[in-house]
């Protein structure tokens, strides 16, 4: 059976895409952010996962308000990164794993999560920035990907509890896949930030650090938060933390924290990175 070996979280700030393209790794502004990643690169080199299942949110590339699914799962042989309109360089095509995608879709629908399946899915910075941060250009370290998009554009959003449960269903489905794949789960986005309104620029370090602590051993505590709580405490776009909750759900009961990094600010955002390993 396929095996989930761990989870990674990373902010997916678009400006990172530009900084990466310009190789600003040692620039004083960017260094505290990029320096968080080499320990994860070492772990990935050692563990060599075959597939990354990526919880992310679309920011108006693949989905518009005409049709806004709460949970959607990519089921394509490949996923293309396309022009988002404001000038981050596109970084090509990502290889999929459609057999595992359909197995997951069948599993979660059987579990009561009636998802939208997507045989075509353009992926934006929410997906591409973390995959690039972890796997570079994917030539030296190839990785198959399955994008799972959770709506954070239009309220009502799925609650932290619901996303955590969704992640658990995803985890059960992956673990019953008849294959030898090693799978890593990504939760992207966050942490606290707000782009819109007169509260733009809001960041909440104390809340973020509490979330990073509790997601390791007490995710059920975080599942008690409402979306309203997240928007109030982490900012309008800080609600992206539901993607981390889905990731954590997929990892099962016990995990060990292997690495973390937290830095304020990158762009308008508190950037968070975590590496969690599954434990029996």
């Amino acid at each position, binding site marked *: 059976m396929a095996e989930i070996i761990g989870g990674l979280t990373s902010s997916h700030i678009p*400006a990172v895409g530009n900084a990466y393209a310009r190789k600003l790794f040692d620039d004083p502004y960017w260094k505290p952010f990029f320096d968080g990643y080499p320990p994860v690169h070492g772990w990935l080199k050692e563990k060599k996962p075959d597939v990354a299942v990526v919880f992310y949110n679309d*920011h*108006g*590339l693949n989905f*518009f*308000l*005409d049709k806004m699914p709460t949970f959607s799962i990519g089921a394509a042989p490949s996923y293309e990164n*396309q*022009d*988002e*309109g*404001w*000038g981050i360089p596109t970084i090509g095509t990502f290889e999929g794993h459609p057999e595992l995608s359909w197995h997951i879709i069948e599993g979660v629908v059987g579990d009561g999560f009636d998802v939208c399946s997507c045989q075509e899915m353009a992926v934006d910075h929410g997906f591409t920035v973390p995959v690039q941060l972890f796997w570079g250009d994917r030539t030296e370290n190839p990785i198959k990907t399955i994008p799972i998009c959770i709506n954070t*554009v*239009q*309220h*009502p959003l799925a609650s932290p509890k619901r996303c955590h449960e969704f992640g658990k269903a995803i985890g059960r489905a992956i673990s019953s896949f008849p294959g030898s794949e090693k799978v890593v789960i990504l939760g992207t986005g966050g942490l606290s930030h*707000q*782009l*819109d*309104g*007169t*509260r*733009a*620029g*809001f*960041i*909440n*370090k104390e809340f973020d650090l509490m979330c990073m602590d509790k997601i390791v051993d007490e995710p059920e505590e975080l599942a008690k938060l409402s979306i*309203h709580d997240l*928007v*109030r405490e982490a900012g*309008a*776009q800080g609600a992206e933390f539901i993607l981390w909750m889905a990731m954590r759900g997929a990892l099962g009961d016990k995990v060990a924290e292997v690495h973390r990094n937290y*830095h*304020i*600010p990158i*762009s*308008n955002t*508190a950037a968070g990175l975590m590496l969690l390993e599954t434990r029996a």
Partner: protein
Amino acid sequence: MSTHTIQEEIPGTVMFDGRMAMKGYALNKMCFSFNSAANREAFRKDEEAYMESYGLNEQQKAAIRARNVLQLIDAGGNIYYLAKFAGIFGLTVQDVGAQQTGMTVEEFKEFLRKQGE
């Protein structure tokens, strides 16, 4: 029985819900079109005709003309789509944040930095 409850307002924050999504549909649809370089060019060439073709109302047109993000949000704009509009003018989220909070861009960046201390 519905479990929907009205939540208290969060100062300085507009929840982009179904009501706002209906209000801003034309505006957001236009901004969504800016994913395409050809559409960005068409907007640059003739803003008024482009807005008209997407059926923007007067409030939305005025907010676009003013390049005013708070007005655009008030007219139903969603920040993810509005970011594509701002991108046409090379504006970053710090520029957009500064405009909304009445700070200079440098002041806004310092405000962000200080929250990390």
